């Protein structure tokens, strides 16, 4: 039955008061932020210690406010000021707050009524609308809160919910991916540009992009000219958030029109349409407000003692290495982070989050690690985030290293730093790594035994550190271009230059480097866990030995699309490896293999081998790891995969385990072979002539698959 009552006008859509010439009424305290309501805009803002607050309104781009509306005292309940303002021109208004602190501030208070503060809940921000356009440094209000509409036409889109075991993650930077002139896109360096490259991602075979920070940040933070080179250095990576609810406008071709939200949503929609998930790299360990000398943007002037971890004297703890530490387990801040993620999951349909320096999320208000930190727990059980990937970078700059021990609630995954370190050390030929490599290849049960193997996000390279091409071309970092005297960036890279530091014409060295890159990617893509590839590694992208290219908005950090031609064989190799992974469910399960015959196929789910079958060599000097995975195939039959990784400088003949009657070993990949014999189409692998023995080349890896003859 339908109601005969039609509510034409809501009583609460009429003003009751006037402030500074504007019609207003007491607002709704929730939600925080600016919300469009019938006839007006509801502004709600929290501060635990402020004595008075004003809403400051600007016309777009104007330096002086058009109006300042003090919240009447009766508009405050608890620490929340709320006011509905009528008759605002939604498109033309920028807003902020002026906050008056107590007459006698506490240690750690940093109220400053001389500053105009941005809304921490601003859903769009202006001030850095077009990337790299120098700002007006004298603007009294540089990062401005804007009003937004939520009327994007999603066309039936929803988060994809790809089973985590099927994911292949591709970490990339929105601007760097298409900024290079070789990208050929119409809007280089933007969300729209990324959309134009979706066919490339499809062809590569990845099904999840992990975007380096896209929350509004200031590329001009700490910007300067490198006097040696004349290069303008930027905050290019963006690990320093200004607006947690606002997509970076400078990454949108339409940012100049204030339509970055629509462009971002269209990117998500188009990626989803292509079967590709979107994971955001989010930075909640610190903010762009820095230390005592940093700018006042919002939190500092609103409620410094709530939002930041402070010493008893009121100074900033610096567990993030960037000046301040976000107070993630304060109940107010916890709610803030929580609502922010809910917002991105629901409003932008994103499929997951990777948390930068997530160990900070496990620290208490005094900075000490907590056994049961409320924020990671709340996120783990959140109804809206149920299908979102939650990936922790489980360490911080304060020395808390939680790989394998991040409070996970059987829900969180982790960037597996031990996977990275072990595979690197094995590949360069370090002694004593064979046993550890074996553990990494089967999902690191030493770290995640009581959890799913999918707790392990396996990676060998990421934005932080050497690219894969540089990992096999440099022994040492070469960060001179960063203008920090090569002091920045990690020193323990576990890299090996294959005999020559940097570029070389030596064909032998070049071949070895290519082989080492293939070894790395092949092992990554047959490992249990969720693999992550650094964008550009599939075409051998170099950063000239720079392992911390955070401040270069130049070809050094951009994806050079011409590499597709020069390193096309590597690209072909990687895409076949992804296809192979997708064709074999036994490489992707939830469970760690145990060495038992769990599938009733007559073979253990994992078995270890050496020069002789069934006789692995775990000795200190062993550089050969061979394993067979056996289990159920997608078609209901049994599947057998044999992997041999030889980091030794000599070839080794290896005895192959005997397959069930009628099955024969077929060669999927052999990194010692020249293109095109290095890799074959999954399902069309050639049979091995010798079914008893095969040769694993020096510093090479091979993968075989058991199939019935003629199948």
């Amino acid at each position, binding site marked *: 039955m339908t109601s005969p009552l039609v509510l034409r006008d809501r009583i609460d859509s009429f003003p009751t008061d006037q402030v500074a010439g504007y019609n207003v009424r007491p607002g709704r305290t929730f939600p925080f932020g600016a919300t469009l309501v019938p006839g007006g805009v509801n502004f709600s803002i929290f501060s635990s210690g402020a004595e008075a607050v004003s809403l400051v309104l600007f016309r777009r781009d104007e330096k002086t406010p058009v109006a300042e509306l003090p919240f009447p005292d009766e508009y405050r309940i608890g620490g929340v000021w709320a006011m509905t303002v009528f008759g605002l021109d*939604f498109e033309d208004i920028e807003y902020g707050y002026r906050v008056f602190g107590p007459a006698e501030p506490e240690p750690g208070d940093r109220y400053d009524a001389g500053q105009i503060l941005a809304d921490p809940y601003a859903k769009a921000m202006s001030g850095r609308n077009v990337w790299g356009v120098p700002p007006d440094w004298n603007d009294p209000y540089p990062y401005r809160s804007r009003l937004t509409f939520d009327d*994007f036409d999603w*066309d039936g889109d929803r988060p994809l919910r790809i089973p985590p075991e099927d994911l292949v993650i591709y970490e990339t930077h929105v601007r760097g991916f298409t900024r290079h002139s070789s990208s050929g896109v119409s809007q280089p360096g933007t969300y729209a540009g990324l959309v134009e490259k979706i066919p490339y991602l499809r062809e590569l075979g990845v099904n999840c992009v992990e975007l380096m920070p896209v929350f509004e940040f200031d590329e001009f933070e700490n910007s300067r000219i490198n006097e040696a080179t004349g290069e303008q250095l930027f905050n290019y990576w963006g690990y320093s958030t200004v607006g947690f609810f606002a997509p970076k406008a400078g990454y949108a071709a*339409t940012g100049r029109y204030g*339509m970055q939200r629509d462009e971002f949503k*269209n990117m998500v929609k*188009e990626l989803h349409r292509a079967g590709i998930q979107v994971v955001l790299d989010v930075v909640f360990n610190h903010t762009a407000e820095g230390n005592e000398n940093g700018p006042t943007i919002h939190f500092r002037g609103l409620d410094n003692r709530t939002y930041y971890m402070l010493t008893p004297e009121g100074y900033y703890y610096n567990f993030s290495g960037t000046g301040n530490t976000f107070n993630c387990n304060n109940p107010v801040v916890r709610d803030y982070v929580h609502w922010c993620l809910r917002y991105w999951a629901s409003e932008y349909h994103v499929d997951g989050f990777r948390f930068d320096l997530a160990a900070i999320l496990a620290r208490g208000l005094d900075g000490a690690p907590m056994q049961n930190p409320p924020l990671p727990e709340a996120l783990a059980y959140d109804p809206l985030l149920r299908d979102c990937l939650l990936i922790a970078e489980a360490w911080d700059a304060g020395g808390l290293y939680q790989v394998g021990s991040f409070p996970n609630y059987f829900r969180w995954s982790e960037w597996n730093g031990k996977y990275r370190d072990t595979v690197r050390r094995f590949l360069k030929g370090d002694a004593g790594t064979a046993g550890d490599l074996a553990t990494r290849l089967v999902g690191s049960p030493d770290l995640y035994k009581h959890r799913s193997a999918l707790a392990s996000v396996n990676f060998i390279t990421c934005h932080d550190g050497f690219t894969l091409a540089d990992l096999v071309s440099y022994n040492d970092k070469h960060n001179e271009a960063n203008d920090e005297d090569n002091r920045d960036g990690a020193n323990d890279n576990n890299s090996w230059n294959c005999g020559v530091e940097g570029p070389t014409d030596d064909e032998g060295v070049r071949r070895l480097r290519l082989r080492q890159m293939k070894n790395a990617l092949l092992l990554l893509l047959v490992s249990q866990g969720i693999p992550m590839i650094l964008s550009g590694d599939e075409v051998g992208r170099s950063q000239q030995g720079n392992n911390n290219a955070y401040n270069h908005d130049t070809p050094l950090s951009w994806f050079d699309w011409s590499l597709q031609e020069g390193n096309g064989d590597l690209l072909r190799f990687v895409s076949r490896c992804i296809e192979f992974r997708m064709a074999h469910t036994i490489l992707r399960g939830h469970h760690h293999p145990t060495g038992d015959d769990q599938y009733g196929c007559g073979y253990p789910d994992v078995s270890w081998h050496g020069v002789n079958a069934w006789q692995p060599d775990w000795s200190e000097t062993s550089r050969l790891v061979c394993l067979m995975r056996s289990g159920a195939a997608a078609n209901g039959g049994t599947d057998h995969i044999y992997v041999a990784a030889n980091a030794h400088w000599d070839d080794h003949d290896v005895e192959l385990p005997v397959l069930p009657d009628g099955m024969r070993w077929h060669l999927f990949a052999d990194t010692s072979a020249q293109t095109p014999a290095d890799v074959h189409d999954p399902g069309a692998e050639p049979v091995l002539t010798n079914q008893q023995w095969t040769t694993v080349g020096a510093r090479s890896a091979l993968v075989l698959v058991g199939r019935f003859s003629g199948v």
Partner: protein
Amino acid sequence: MGFSATLSRNGRIALITLEGELDALHADDFRNRVEQAANGGQIDQLVLDMTDLTYMSSAGMRGLVFARQKMGEDIRIVLVRASDSVEQTIRLVGFHQSVVFSDEVPG
């Protein structure tokens, strides 16, 4: 500079002629015309003549989204002589899949 949106009909085509600056203050005028067009009898096409539209803000763009949702999927929305910047913005935010660009008012 003002704004006007006038509605006319030609058989099963509804034509809205837009003139001037379509900004947030005038977005309601535009939406009212769209509603009139939607409620004024069966049509196959909604044609928006933008020949004399000098400016269109994001609120105007949202008016197009409103038109799409109001009309339903069976009715073609044709944008006639949209300026380069309007057309490009529509493409960048993905809305071009929901409309047709044309140089002529369909007869």
